[in-house]
């Protein structure tokens, strides 16, 4: 079957890509000026545990040395690191040696997924009709308004919107919706808006262009000549054909949103994977940092795979050949 082969091929190339990224990251960390995978970094990472409980400390040191194979040849270290990551065997973090990284992921990842996926879906739901509107009323005031707004949304990154929202709902209208934390539905409102604005801009702009392009095609004229009324024409021949093109923009948009989620989580103090990751980077907790990158990247790749798959299913001309 074509589809199965397509998926398998894509999965293999995904694994290769991510392995290369992991290996390169590991090597860079290894050979960087402050060489993260060394006993000294390890020691400084664990702070004064060395003096509080020398025995436990030694135990952790051994654990990390074994895990990252610090005394083995470099290729061995890389291979085992990549293999462990691919099998989701992440071990513990420097900062929090008692806690397996997996446990931390289990708490934070769902939040990031909810935020990023939710805002992309919402953006599509809002952006598509706006794009259609702008395209059908091309060059009218609605169009210029929507186009300008979508450009603003596209240009200004999520963290600027986030900061503005904090100002608005922290200073101007305090108490209307919560400006930090996570747990209730209300908590999700501001971060989702911050993430959505840009995505709505992208979706609107792209849909507009795509629909204008479809409506210019000869087959639209053919359908008109058949007597197909305006709205069925727009829907069946215009929008449907531009949706196929639209799907391709979802992948990059999602990738961008995942990055935006990292920012927004930091600003709204949401305990998601983004916050976890930036904490790890700031504190030189390299195992946790790279693992977070790995997981977030995997998420992006997974969505891209789904996008390509649905594209292939939607457009009969695209044969499933990766």
């Amino acid at each position: 079957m074509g589809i199965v082969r397509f998926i398998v091929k894509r999965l293999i190339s995904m694994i290769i890509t991510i392995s290369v990224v992991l290996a390169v990251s590991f090597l860079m960390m290894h050979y960087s000026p402050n060489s993260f995978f060394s006993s000294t970094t390890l020691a400084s990472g664990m702070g004064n545990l060395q003096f509080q409980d020398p025995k436990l400390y030694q135990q952790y040191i051994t654990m990390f040395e074994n895990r990252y194979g610090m005394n083995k040849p470099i290729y061995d270290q890389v291979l085992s690191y990549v293999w462990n990551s691919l099998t989701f065997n992440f071990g513990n973090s420097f900062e929090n040696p008692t806690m397996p990284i997996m446990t931390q992921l289990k708490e934070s990842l769902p939040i990031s997924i909810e935020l990023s996926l939710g805002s992309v879906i919402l953006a599509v739901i809002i952006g598509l009709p706006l794009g259609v509107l702008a395209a059908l009323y091309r060059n009218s005031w609605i169009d210029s308004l929507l186009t300008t707004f979508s450009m603003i949304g596209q240009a200004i990154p999520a963290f600027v919107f986030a900061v503005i929202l904090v100002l608005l709902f922290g200073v101007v209208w305090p108490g209307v919706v919560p400006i930090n934390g996570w747990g209730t539905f209300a908590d999700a409102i501001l971060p989702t808006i911050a993430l959505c604005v840009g995505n709505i801009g992208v979706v609107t702009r792209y849909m507009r262009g795509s629909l204008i392009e479809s409506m210019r095609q000869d087959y639209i004229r053919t359908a008109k000549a058949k007597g197909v009324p305006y709205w069925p024409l727009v829907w069946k021949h215009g929008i449907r054909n531009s949706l196929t093109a639209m799907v391709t923009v979802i992948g990059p948009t999602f990738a961008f949103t995942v990055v935006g989620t990292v920012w927004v989580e930091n600003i709204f103090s949401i305990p998601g994977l983004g916050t976890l990751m930036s904490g790890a980077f700031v504190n030189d907790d390299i195992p946790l940092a790279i693992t977070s990158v790995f997981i977030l990247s995997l998420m992006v790749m997974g969505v891209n795979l789904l996008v390509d798959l649905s594209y292939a299913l939607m457009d009969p001309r695209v044969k499933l050949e990766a």
Partner: protein
Amino acid sequence: MTQELLRVTDLKTEFQRGDEKVYTVNGVSFSLREGETLGIVGESGSGKSVTVHSMLGLLQGAGKVSSGQAIFQNRVDLLQLRRKQLEDIRGRDIGVIFQDPMTSLNPTMRIGNQIMEGMLTHQYASRKKAFERTLDLLHEVGIPEPKARFRNFPFEFSGGMRQRVMIAMAIACEPQLLIADEPTTALDVTVQMQILALMQKLKQDRKMSVLMITHDFGVATNFCDRILVMYGGKVMEAASLDTFIRRPLHPYTIALKSSIIEVGDRHKKLQAIPGMAKVWNAPPHHCPFYERCTFATQQCLKEVPELTQVDDQEDHWLACHHVEEVLKSVG
């Protein structure tokens, strides 16, 4: 005398291109009788396609009909209809075939559905009936294995087969008038022959009127009953086929006919028409062919010649100030 099906009077269409206005159709009049096949012939930019697109409300871009009438079936003026009323006529009473079968079919829709769409839109048949009829149509236009082909997409067809699909689509609701806009231009000669033969058979079986737009004199003269020659957005000459072939009177028609190169012309000296067609940024206030015409005089520069009947006996119309001189020169 058969009934008149379509009468177009003084049709004018202009386009806005950037800062400029382009006058594409500058007062076209003609009529088409039931069962008749009329060929509109002209070079690119003559306004022949725009004429029919204007009539059907299919103008693209910034095109606008500025005046004229197009009376269909002696009852409605196509140019005055509301969108909804025009949609009822398009596809049901008037079927259209376009030039490029590659781009004129929706690439993501099964061809069967594209053929059925018109019938369902006009409630011409129930879904089930429409399906059966589609299979019959596919068979009729010469597509083998209609059942299997129904579910195919346009990209799975050759150019000739796609044009057959276009034809099936155009005749699905048994229209009285079939408009074919350069239907064979994009096709190879042997395929062109197939498509023309098919169209001729369909036209005879159904007693359809056909309006064929083409730049190819060979196609027009072998397929049509009457010929209309356009230049610069105006009708230069209109005549029955026989008159057109044997006694064309407009200097443009004569020049154009003598510039066709046919097999057997090997040792003939060709007569090129000097100059080239121009783009009208203002409505023509002289004969459009003035610059290229060997008979041109001051009169041609001052007055636009009206389309007038050559003599009462004949269905032969001409827009030229110099019929006498032309007659003398042809002998």
